[in-house]
C-alpha cells in the first residue's frame, strides 16, 4: 500500500512538472530567460546556453527584414565582434502554453571594425514544452513608441 502511495506521489510530481506554471511564475521565469538570452548570452557568447533556449524550429525576423533560423542565429553569435543588448519596458502576455514577450531594445556593437547603435522593438514567442519554456520566434523592428 505504501508503495502505491509513493507511486501516486511520484506520479503527482511528474504531472505537476509537465503542467504550465501559474501566471506569476511563468512571467518571472520568462523575464529571467529574456535577460539571459538578450543580455548575458551576447556578453559571454555562450552558444550552448542559447542552443538550449531556442527550439529547433526557431525563426527570427531581424531588424533588416532578414529571415534567420536557429543555425543562423547561433552562427551570428559566434561571428559578432562585440555586442551589448539593453532591453527595457518588457511585458509578458500569456496564452495558455504560449507566451508573447514584447519590449524595446538598444544594441551597441561593432561589426567589420565599425561601431553601431540601434534602437527598436522586439516581439518574442515562447512555448512551454517538455516542462520548460523554449523560444520559437523573434521579431526585431526599427523604431519604438
Amino acid at each position, binding site marked *: 500500500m505504501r508503495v502505491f502511495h509513493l507511486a501516486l506521489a511520484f506520479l503527482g510530481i511528474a504531472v505537476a512538472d509537465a503542467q504550465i506554471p501559474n501566471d506569476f511564475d511563468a512571467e518571472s521565469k520568462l523575464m529571467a530567460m529574456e535577460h539571459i538570452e538578450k543580455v548575458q548570452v551576447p556578453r559571454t557568447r555562450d552558444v550552448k546556453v542559447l542552443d538550449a533556449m531556442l527550439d529547433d524550429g526557431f525563426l527570427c525576423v531581424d531588424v533588416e*527584414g532578414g529571415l534567420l533560423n536557429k543555425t543562423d542565429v547561433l552562427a551570428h553569435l559566434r561571428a559578432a565582434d562585440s555586442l551589448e543588448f539593453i532591453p527595457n519596458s518588457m511585458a509578458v*502576455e500569456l*496564452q495558455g502554453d504560449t507566451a508573447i514577450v*514584447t519590449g524595446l531594445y538598444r544594441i551597441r556593437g561593432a561589426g567589420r571594425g565599425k561601431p553601431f547603435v540601434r534602437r527598436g*522593438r522586439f*516581439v518574442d514567442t515562447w512555448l512551454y514544452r517538455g516542462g520548460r519554456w523554449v523560444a*520559437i520566434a523573434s*521579431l526585431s523592428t526599427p523604431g*519604438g513608441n
Partner: protein
Amino acid sequence: MRAVIRWFFLVLFSSVAVWGQQGDKGGSVATIRALEHEWAEGQSRNDTRVLDLIFDNALVYVEYGKLVSKGEYLARIKRENSELDQIAFEGVTVHIFGSTALATGTYCERELRSGKTEQRRWRFIDTWVYKKGSWVLVAAGSAPITR
C-alpha cells in the same frame, strides 16, 4: 449582403473546419494560410467585423515599430482610406507547434502619397494559437526589408 455572406463563411471556416483537427497538420496549415489571406482582404475592404473574428482580444501587434492594441488597430482600419494603400502578399509559410503556429512571409505595400506611389517590402512573423475550436492571431509584427 455579400459582406454578411463572407462573414458567415469566415466564421464557418475558422471554427467548424478546424474542429478536432489539431492533429491534422495539413488542415491547420491551410486554415492559417486562408486566415492570413482573409486578414489582408478584410483590411483592404475596411471590414473590421472580419478582423475582429481573426484577432484575439489580447492581440500584440507591432505596426511601423509601434505597439498597438486590437482596438487601436481596428479603429485605424475603420477610418483609413483603403484605396490609397494596397498590400500584395508574396507568400506565406506556416509552421505548426502543436496548438501554436507561426506564419512567416513577405508582402509589398504600395501607398499613394502626394500623388506619388511609394513601395516598401516587409517581412512578417505572426503567432496563431488554437483556442476554443479555432485559430486566432495573438501576435504579429513586421520589419522593413532593407538588405
